[in-house]
């Protein structure tokens, strides 16, 4: 099913929750809404579901204007971050409940419940009560209930956020497979860039109630239209800094400088910005050197994330292996200037790293 937002805004009193948004979701695929808390993900979903009516603008599905059509009259299912199940129903009855409401025959219900329980690895638990399940099993039950209805639009609002990370790992693997055969248009809200990359599909980056960019997930990551889009799509946060262009050189403060890519040397001298992904800042090696003061070295098992103060900026180095630093330690980090993304003073992308795709960035899908 197609779903389209036309000039949609949403205000509560004097407060704007969603600024004018135009968005055409990819039918029959994964559409990810990526943004931090309060960026408007949940509000957008509630608008799409019909749980909220836009203040201005229209929402269309196929050729039908559904603005103001009640949620009950739409083909929509929604799963929330908190696992919501009927506590006094068994897993079987939880999954069967929307089918009973729809008046399906007992046999048809049985067939469907078993098919989706199988898909979500819940078959051995069908007779248990939700309180006897682990968090992952409870959320899978909620997912099965949403899927079994066979709705054309499925809205998933951070469905994995309350699960421990190993379970998230497994479900992230399973989810796209689960929906691949249903043909449903899936909208998936998350605050985690890595989750968006794992799920693939299309992504809309959101910031403070605005859709910043929409397009294929990997291409948004590689070619963010603006610094904001790059920031939304980076965890740990992308390293940014104001630079000054003087001739064919970029200056970061007075002491750090490097040669600009030839393409950029023709731009007028003045103030620009750079974005450097945390994994392109290295604890050792050759390249442009920066001095930083270590705030913390975080270790995730196989990687280290080192946060450092570089002048007025907090920069992050994300690197393989386990690197320990003392708090407050002065350390040297390096980066390859070829990995810098360049933005104008207005935060619009000028140039992406030479190693990435060099196609014309004016067609980067900005809305």
């Amino acid at each position, binding site marked *: 099913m197609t779903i389209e937002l036309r000039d949609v805004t949403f205000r509560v009193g004097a407060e704007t929750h969603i600024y004018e948004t135009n968005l055409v979701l990819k039918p029959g695929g994964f559409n990810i809404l990526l943004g*931090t*808390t309060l960026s408007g993900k949940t509000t957008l979903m509630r608008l799409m579901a019909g749980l909220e009516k836009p203040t201005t603008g229209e929402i269309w599905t196929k050729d039908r204007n559904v603005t103001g059509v009640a949620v009950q009259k739409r083909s929509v299912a929604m799963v929330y971050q908190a696992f919501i199940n009927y506590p006094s129903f068994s897993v079987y009855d939880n999954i069967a409940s929307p089918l009973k409401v729809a008046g399906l025959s007992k046999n048809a219900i049985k067939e469907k419940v078993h098919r989706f329980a199988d898909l979500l690895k819940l078959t051995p638990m069908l007779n248990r009560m939700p309180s006897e399940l*682990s*968090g992952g099993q409870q959320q899978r039950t909620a997912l099965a209930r949403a899927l079994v209805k066979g709705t054309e639009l499925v809205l998933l609002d951070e469905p994995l956020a309350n699960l*421990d*990370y*190993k379970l998230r*790992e497994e479900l992230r693997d399973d989810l796209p497979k689960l929906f691949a055969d249903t043909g449903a248009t899936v909208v998936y809200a998350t*605050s985690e*860039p*890595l989750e968006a*990359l*794992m799920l*693939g599909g299309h992504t809309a980056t959101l910031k403070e109630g605005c859709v910043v960019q929409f397009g294929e997930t*990997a291409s948004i*990551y590689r070619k963010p239209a603006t610094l904001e889009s790059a920031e939304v799509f980076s965890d740990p946060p992308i390293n940014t800094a104001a630079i000054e262009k003087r001739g064919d050189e970029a200056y970061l403060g007075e002491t750090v400088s490097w040669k600009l890519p030839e393409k950029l040397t023709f731009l007028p001298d003045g103030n620009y910005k750079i974005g450097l*992904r945390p*994994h392109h800042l290295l604890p050792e090696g050759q390249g442009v050197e920066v001095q930083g003061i270590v*705030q*913390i*070295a*975080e*270790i*995730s*098992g*196989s990687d280290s*994330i080192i*946060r450092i103060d570089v002048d007025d900026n907090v920069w992050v180095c*994300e690197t*393989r292996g*386990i690197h320990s630093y003392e*708090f407050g330690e002065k350390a040297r980090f390096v980066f390859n200037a070829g990995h810098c993304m360049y933005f104008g003073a207005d935060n619009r992308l000028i140039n992406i790293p030479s*190693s990435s795709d060099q196609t014309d960035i004016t067609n980067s899908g900005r809305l």
Partner: protein
Amino acid sequence: MAEIRFKNVQHAYPPPKGQKPVYALKEVNQIWEDGGAYALLGPSGCGKTTLLNTISGLLTPSEGEIYFDDQEVTHLPTSDRRIAQVFQFPVVYDTMTVFDNLAFPLRNRGMDETAVKQRVAQIAEMLDLTANLNKRASGLTADGKQKISLGRGLVRSDVNAILFDEPLTVIDPHLKWQLRSKLKELHQQTGVTMIYVTHDQVEALTFADKVVVMYDGAVVQVGTPVELFNRPKHKFVGYFIGSPGMNFLPCKLDRGQPVFHNNLLNTSYPVGNDLSGRTEVGVRPEFVEFTDDGIPVVIDKIEDLGRYQVVTVKHESEVIKMVVDEDQQIPTDNPKIQFNPDMTRIYCDDWLVGGGQNE
């Protein structure tokens, strides 16, 4: 300040009638060195909170003994143990000011007001709460409140240890690292023993000098982050630490070297050939690479995760995950893989066997 020692500590909650007791904690022998930063890591239900509660005295273990230095405290009530605790949800007195919250434990112990003022000012400084001292605690954000809980633990100079039970759960993800950084800094400044319970590997490995990994009521490994990554003693550690987790593949043994579906693998840590039990080879996705010569595989899935790619391959229906650099080409023509022998380990009935266990 004290060294905390566990001697054969076990705990079974009372079983339902006619059933055998189920142990939530199985034979823990563990020394918590004075001034150490420990993390207790494991999935929900592994027994980590049970263990923590036996330290604080909220729970008396059904078997075994606990010592603080030379004093046995197994049956001592919480109030006599001088333990501070920080829970998932900040516990603050909402109607009191930040100052009064921090002063509370000191005033309770009858400290004179000048000393209270001095000590509270010192702790507030450490926690960056000085500017908020006269504000009511109810007006603070979740991380501010959690800092108060933490401050109340630190303000007493006589605590034996501070225990943290998933203290960052309610903190906004973007602020978590700042609080983690603060905790580390505080540990270095105060030298108080800290024990931090979490199911999050980043929190555990970042905070702790030593990580205690628990699984199914038992401590399966105690080690530094590097040890846990390089040399998981139990399959669970290999799975739980690292993302994606370690690959485990069924193998036979040939003169101490693992054989996986007729492919002789090399490990720098061979074993004697007389193992009886289920043997598997374990290798992390980071140490599997494409080579011209090796085990033939079929590529199942390539995930571009920006910084790196996770490639899922199959050999004889066994799934192997690989971590590959972002700009590396994935071979399409008869791909073959190899394992790094220095990072290939053998497991028997879920436990690490073979040489190099103590390197």
